[in-house]
């Protein structure tokens, strides 16, 4: 059963995207509460809330903010990551559409805490409609004097921030924070080597913080309900609510806001109405296509938060749950995932550029029934050699699901290999007994 909880990101209020309705429902109160504290006080409050990044790495947000240098004359920047290209992840889109003002308020609070004068919201190019909706929300906030040059006057202090939109143009890798910065600067979306970290040398060489849309949109509520109350929602080590995007073989797919630590089986059966045709579950990817899968027999009792998923060798990622029923062809699915990462690899690092291609080629061979079983070991070996050997996490993202599927569903892959083996392995006829009894006849 899902316990009662207060919705933080997508409360059930009609037309909340309208700025007046947002204000009538407590909008911008969080910012007012935040500016009654010192900037460091705001960061400490976020630390106290236990908020962790929603982009996949689950890094504590308050800690990230505290890395920004203080007392420097350099301009500082905030980049809000709405690239959201992870297959299975479609949560930020709901925020742009249903609660954009809360995102703007979050940017104001983050900006105040780190003394940032300009923030860029990076939205993926495919979201044409949502770019327009977000731009409309920003324009409304400017009109009200909540951001921009009139902001200080509106709120009676001397802080102001400008918010700009930047539209991507179709590159998965730009969801990686340093690639996003390259893209914002007008370059190809190439990730950069860290260190220097963005907080030291980010956009245009200046201190920069990159946060996920969902993370920033959560912040205002922390100041409305209080950090202490927020930290009590959901799992204690990964508190708050998450937007779970459920897709695949499921009766009621969609985005659901639920507390962290919710049972995966509750999400699948209670919230989303189970599997079409009452079929059994073969596999579940818990956090977007780059996360290793869970086997159907593993999902009982699994709670959806980072700390609970770790022992099962997977992560919460972006909360994109993909469900596969018993009839799913996992070889085809793994091939599709490998194809995606091969297509999206930016090409800077050899292990990723070449390795992703190899993964796809080997999987294609397996899918076409032209592979031998040692190709399965080769898949794992190539994955191991990509992981950790690249500038950014795209290499890991390509290696994890392939290795995960091959190791957790080995028999499924073996079937593809054995059924259509093109040569008879020599060692079948080398047993002594075989030789004496029947082999001679056969020859």
């Amino acid at each position: 059963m899902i316990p009662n909880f207060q919705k933080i990101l997508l409360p059930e209020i009609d037309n909340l995207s309208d700025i007046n309705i947002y204000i009538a429902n407590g909008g911008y109160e969080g910012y007012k509460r935040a500016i009654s504290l010192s900037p460091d006080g705001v960061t400490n409050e976020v630390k106290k809330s236990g908020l962790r990044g929603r982009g996949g790495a689950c890094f504590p947000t308050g800690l990230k903010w505290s890395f920004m240098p203080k007392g420097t004359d350099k301009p500082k920047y905030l980049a809000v990551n709405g690239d959201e290209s992870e297959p299975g992840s479609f949560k930020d889109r709901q925020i742009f559409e249903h609660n954009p003002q809360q995102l703007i308020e979050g940017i104001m609070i983050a900006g105040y805490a780190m003394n940032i004068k300009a923030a860029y919201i990076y939205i993926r190019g495919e979201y044409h409609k949502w770019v327009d909706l977000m731009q409309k929300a920003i324009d409304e906030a400017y009109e009200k004097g909540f951001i921009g040059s009139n902001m200080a006057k509106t709120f009676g202090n001397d802080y102001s921030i400008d918010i700009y939109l930047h539209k991507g143009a179709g590159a998965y890798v730009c969801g990686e924070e340093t690639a996003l910065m390259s893209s914002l600067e007008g370059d190809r979306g190439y990730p950069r080597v860290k260190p220097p970290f963005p907080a030291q040398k980010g956009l245009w060489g200046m201190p920069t913080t990159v946060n996920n849309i969902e993370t920033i949109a959560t912040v205002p509520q922390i100041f409305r309900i209080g950090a202490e109350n927020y930290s009590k929602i959901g799992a204690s080590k990964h508190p708050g609510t998450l937007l779970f995007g459920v897709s695949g073989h499921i009766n009621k797919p969609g985005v659901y806001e639920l507390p962290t630590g919710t049972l995966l089986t509750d999400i699948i059966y209670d919230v989303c109405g189970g599997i079409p045709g009452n079929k059994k579950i073969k596999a579940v990817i818990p956090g977007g296509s780059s996360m290793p899968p869970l086997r159907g027999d593993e999902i009982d009792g699994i709670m959806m938060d980072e700390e609970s998923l770790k022992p099962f060798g997977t992560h919460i990622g972006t909360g994109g749950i993909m469900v596969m029923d018993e009839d799913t062809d996992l070889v085809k699915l793994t091939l599709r995932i490998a194809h995606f990462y091969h297509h999206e690899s930016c090409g800077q690092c050899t292990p990723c550029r070449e390795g992703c291609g190899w993964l796809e080629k080997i999987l294609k061979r397996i899918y076409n029934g032209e592979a031998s079983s040692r190709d399965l070991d080769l898949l794992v070996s190539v994955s191991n050699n990509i992981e950790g050997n690249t500038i950014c996490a795209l290499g890991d993202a390509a290696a994890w699901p392939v290795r995960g599927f091959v190791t957790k569903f080995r028999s499924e892959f073996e079937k593809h290999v054995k059924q259509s083996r093109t040569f008879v392995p020599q060692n079948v006829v080398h047993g002594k007994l075989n030789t004496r009894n029947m082999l001679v006849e056969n020859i």
Partner: protein
Amino acid sequence: MEIVFNAEELEKIETIKAKYPETKAALMPTLWMAQKKWGWLSPDVMRYVGDLLGLTYAHVEGVATFYTMYFKKPMGKFHLQVCTNVSCMLRNGDKIYHHVSERLNIGHMERTDDGVFSLEEVECMGACGDSPMVAVNEDFYENMSIIKVDELIDSLKKT
């Protein structure tokens, strides 16, 4: 056709430039504007945008070819984008793609001879909850099926 932005567009580019501390950052928005105006980014368009922003042709082409949504060749009036990634594939998105490809007799990033349709097998467009999905230019059509996509193509043909 002369490749040049009109005064209003040039003014818009100035406001875009003002958003960023460096002019180079205005490249992606300007390429978007150029693609909207001329339909695709020909070498001449890229050269013009480069001159406008003080960037080399090599840089502009490098950026334009890195991002898949900038067209490097002319596309159809209706650019059909069919997602075949995991969530859509689980709900037969790949079958829809092959159906459209066979019906229009074009492959990935090709367009029909009359220039009305072009097809692209896209990676996840963020509509997994309503998969399978097809996008026509900038509009998303969700919960698709082979029958629905046929109807969609028929209705587009009439316009």
